């Protein structure tokens, strides 16, 4: 867990419940109590109606790949040691999309529409990062 060199998420008041859930290896999203819009990344206000009345709902953690790229060049610390890596845009069952990585899968086997499920990587004592792995069919 030590020696993690990639950028570490900045936890603030809005995102704290999200990261606390990740720490428990659970994926939670904010839902606006006024208009019902789900949102990710966590924000103080609903981007649709600007309401601050928010609840947290648990997601299934399953979704499918909307689009992806296999990154071969990134000289940023941590990333350069893991090239190539799969960067993907995941559409969750609940309809929310997340940027993440696809892991536990050869890059050449990744495809658009592939079913995936969340998997958490404990990067330090405070933070577990949600990534995605192929869902066995």
């Amino acid at each position: 867990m030590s020696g993690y060199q990639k950028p570490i998420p900045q936890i603030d008041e809005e995102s704290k419940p999200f990261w606390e859930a990740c720490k428990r290896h659970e994926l939670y999203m904010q839902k606006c109590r006024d208009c019902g819009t789900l949102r990710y990344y966590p924000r103080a206000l609903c981007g649709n109606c600007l309401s601050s009345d928010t609840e947290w709902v648990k997601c299934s953690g399953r979704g499918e790949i909307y689009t992806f790229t296999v990154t071969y060049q990134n000289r940023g610390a941590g990333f350069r040691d893991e090239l190539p890596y799969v960067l993907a845009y995941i559409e969750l069952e609940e309809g929310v999309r997340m940027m993440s990585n696809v892991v536990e899968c050869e890059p050449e086997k990744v495809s658009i529409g592939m079913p995936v499920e969340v998997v958490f990587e404990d990067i330090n004592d405070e933070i577990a990062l949600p990534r995605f792995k192929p869902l066995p069919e």
Partner: protein
Amino acid sequence: MKNGAIPDNINQLNAEERIEFLFNFLALEVLDMRDVSIIGVGTTPFSKHKERGIADLSLEAGRKAIEDAGIDKSKIEALYLGNYAAEALVGQGSLAAITGRNLGLGQIPCTRTEGACASAGIALRESFLTIAAGIYDVVIAVGAEQMSTCSTGVVTSVLAGAGDTTMDNIYGLTFPGFFGLVLRKHMEEFGTTRDQVSCVSVKNHHNGATNPIAYLKDEITVEGVNESRFIADPLTLYDCCPITDGAVAMVLCPSDMARDLCKKPVKVVGSGHAIGTTSILQMESFTTFPATLKAAEMAYQMAGVKPEDIDVVELHDCFTIAEIVDSEDLGLFEKGEGGPAVESGRTAVDGELPINPSGGLISRGHPVGATGLAQVYELVLQLKGEAANQVKNPELGLAHNLGGSGAVSTVHILSKDF
């Protein structure tokens, strides 16, 4: 001045309706906006100017533009300078004031505009608006960036900061990665092929090879692009624009004054500026940029023209797939037709709608804060009949600048006024 009808319920309109109303208001010229023309342009060569300072580049471009305009520099009342990241890249802030001072413009207001890679498009628009509104008569717009003195890693990281850094960067999103996501989706959605995408790079390298200010002078083949190394699969090295230094400037004034000062003034007939998605997480589609759609709609409406009226285009090909997406978003081709259009030669210099005759960002290079004005520089030469890769008798040109992950776009439409 025409009388505009201000709706009785103006105070009840929501923000979007008000903006819609103001667009129409401007387009109808009910505000008595003045016509604005470009009377002089100047540029540095686009290259890796490692031995020079950024203020030296902006000074060279500014001096050339003032000389080209043939105007006494004491007539210049304001300066707008597009620059994205001089603090982070070369440790220099206050570049607008420094450039104004170095040019000896006196104590005029000098303002920096920032919209990532669309910073210079915004400088042009602010120059245009302040003249059109009657606030100033003569304004100089400048764009400058110096990138080659930093390592590729630093440049990649600074450019990534143009996206919303909260959540994307922890997963290793880079700008090539972003356009890799776009390319993969465009291929899946519209059947765009690897060869079609490579044709953008082949065409733009071909055009840049004969453009004296372009950075890259080598021709390339479809196979050469296809087989170059992956940067962000399916994006390869020759799908990407190079890290480049450069500066561009131009002098603008009311069109009435321009006709007296200049033999071949070029009129800005349409101008649009809009934001779109500032984070990848906001994107509903990966094959269109809402900022471009809105800025284009504003510019077409103000100019009173349609996409089919445009004769020559300089658009934001930071990556090959961006040229295809942009050409569709600008309404020049149907969605999914951008790839076949470039492959069949329709966008070549001698094609029915030449796109990026300068070589575009891919070959001319992309000093990010200068690019928006470099596009307009090329269009001014094209409309005057003085371009290196001259399109046959163009009357109307369109410049499209895009910043961030679709965060900002400007569109300008230019017309001969001689």
